[in-house]
């Protein structure tokens, strides 16, 4: 028997991270999901298969990742709000479709539940892959939730940003949080802010699909209603015609990157914890922010002036916030669960103003707070 639960499951839950991500997507208005099985992202598909029929949406299990990502593109152009979920190795295959979505400005949300190569242990090893997996000049928005609640909240935000900027947005999940159960509070539906894409008011004959001011986003037109837009990955002009014209190519790519870069204040968010008087600031993202927060409490208890800058948006890089942290503190610890990747970005931004040290762990497990405390002590010795 088909359950008929509402689209927004308002209330307090004890929920698996992957399920919370699905509920976030549904609360944001997602009505199309396509994906190909891979652990540790399978519970996203499992719950979508159950929930989509309940809310009148469509669920598709693709024959592979390529099928899934292009199904997303097609459904999004037809007007749907779309999600896929994959994990590390599956993301490899989706890179081409993401490039397509970037070049044709197709809103979509991709949930990437990072896992260690060939296994399902915890890692943040794909923080670069998500940003740079697709070919060609582009900007991507990547959000890094750290809890089951943030998997819900950030997935909603990912949909809003995808719709507003007509760009793929990636939710950078991890085994750690995706397979964790935690308290989740879903607010009443009318308290959830939802942004939908702007649709054109122009008549089919007058509509110019890729025309917009620098840093702006063109209005979309519904597919199959006479607007006859060609969505090609090849270089195209404002009318969507495939044409190699160097100046037009340059302007087009300038615009689709500037629509992100000129709106950083709207896109990039961070949280600060005990940074006001901090002499040492930890910079972390995703699940790694959690032991960092405990470590800050321990260090403060010992009279050490330590704080945390938590990056909610990892791409674009929160340069303004990292720079401010570097100007405030003498020392920065770049904490992550891989061999040291995003630390390069932190060094690039903060290196001139503070000493940046890498605190990395690549053992398929999150740092313990004790390990972070030890790194703080070592650095302050």
């Amino acid at each position, binding site marked *: 028997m088909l359950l008929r639960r509402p689209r927004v499951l308002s209330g*307090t*839950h*004890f929920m698996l991270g992957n399920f919370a991500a699905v509920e976030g997507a549904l609360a944001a208005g997602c009505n199309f999901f396509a994906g190909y099985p891979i652990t540790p992202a399978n519970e996203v598909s499992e719950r979508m298969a159950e929930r989509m029929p309940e809310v009148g949406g469509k669920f598709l299990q693709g024959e592979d990742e390529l099928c899934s990502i292009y199904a997303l593109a097609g459904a999004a152009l037809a007007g749907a709000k779309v999600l896929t979920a994959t994990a590390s190795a599956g993301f490899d295959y989706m890179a081409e479709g993401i490039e397509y979505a970037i070049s044709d400005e197709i809103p979509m949300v991709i949930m990437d539940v990072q896992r260690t190569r060939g296994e399902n242990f915890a890692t943040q090893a794909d923080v670069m892959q998500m940003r740079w997996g697709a070919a060609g000049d582009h900007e991507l928005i990547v959000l890094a939730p750290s809890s089951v609640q943030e998997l819900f909240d950030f997935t909603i935000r990912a949909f809003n940003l995808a719709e507003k900027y007509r760009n793929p947005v990636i939710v950078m999940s991890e085994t*750690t*949080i995706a*397979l*964790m*159960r*935690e*308290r989740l509070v879903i607010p009443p539906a009318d308290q959830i802010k939802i942004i939908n894409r702007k649709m054109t008011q122009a008549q089919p004959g007058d509509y110019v699909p890729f025309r917009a001011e620098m840093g702006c986003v063109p209005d979309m037109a519904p597919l199959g209603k006479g607007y006859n837009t060609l969505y090609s990955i090849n270089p195209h002009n404002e009318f969507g015609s495939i044409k190699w014209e160097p100046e037009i190519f340059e302007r087009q790519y300038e615009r689709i990157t500037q629509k992100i870069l000129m709106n950083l204040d709207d896109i990039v968010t961070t949280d600060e914890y005990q940074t006001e008087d901090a002499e040492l600031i930890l910079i972390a993202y995703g*699940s790694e922010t*959690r*032991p960092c*927060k*405990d470590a800050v409490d321990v260090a403060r208890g010992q009279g050490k002036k330590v704080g945390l800058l938590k990056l909610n948006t990892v791409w674009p890089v929160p340069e303004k916030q990292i720079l401010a942290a570097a100007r405030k503190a003498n020392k920065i610890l770049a904490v992550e669960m891989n061999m040291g990747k995003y630390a390069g970005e932190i060094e690039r931004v903060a290196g001139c103003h503070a000493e940046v040290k890498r605190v990395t762990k690549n053992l398929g497990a*999150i740092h*313990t*707070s*004790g390990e972070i405390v030890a790194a703080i002590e070592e650095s302050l010795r």
Partner: protein
Amino acid sequence: MIAERQAIQFCGFGGQGVILAALIFGSTAVTKQGYHAVQTQSFGSETRGGECQAELILSKEPIFSPTADKVDILVAMSDLAFSRYVGRLKSGGILIMDPDMVTRPSRNDLKIYEIKANHIGKELGFALSSNMVFLGALHRFCGILSDQQLFDGIRENVAERYAEVNIKAAQAGIDTMSGLLK
């Protein structure tokens, strides 16, 4: 009643309902008593028989690190998993174990409660309910929920046709622990 923050580990083999017990306790504490809870788990790729463990942190305050360095309470359902995880139990910690399934440890710094969960489950005619016997015993020890809240939590998380026998098993666990706490 237990302290404001507790790390509880459940261990056994796949098929015993190790994770379900942790899930029900966490879920009930969160949805009926306003607790914060984080539950993590690991298990072998076998559907049944592999080693399995679930960790549950309960707190009145938000929880940051999702796993604890040492656990306060260990619920041990099988010997193999127990020998692996007994080292995580803090000194002075609580061990709730089935003496028919687990060898009493040589550590003398623990408070041990023996619950014949398998035997009780079998007597109720549903051997698979031994996890609920443990759950009832743990619940009685912790004292953060009412019995009714626990039973409602069980009802919400198991198939309807198994709700009554599972609640009976939990009641048996509560009664056994009550006897031990006297």
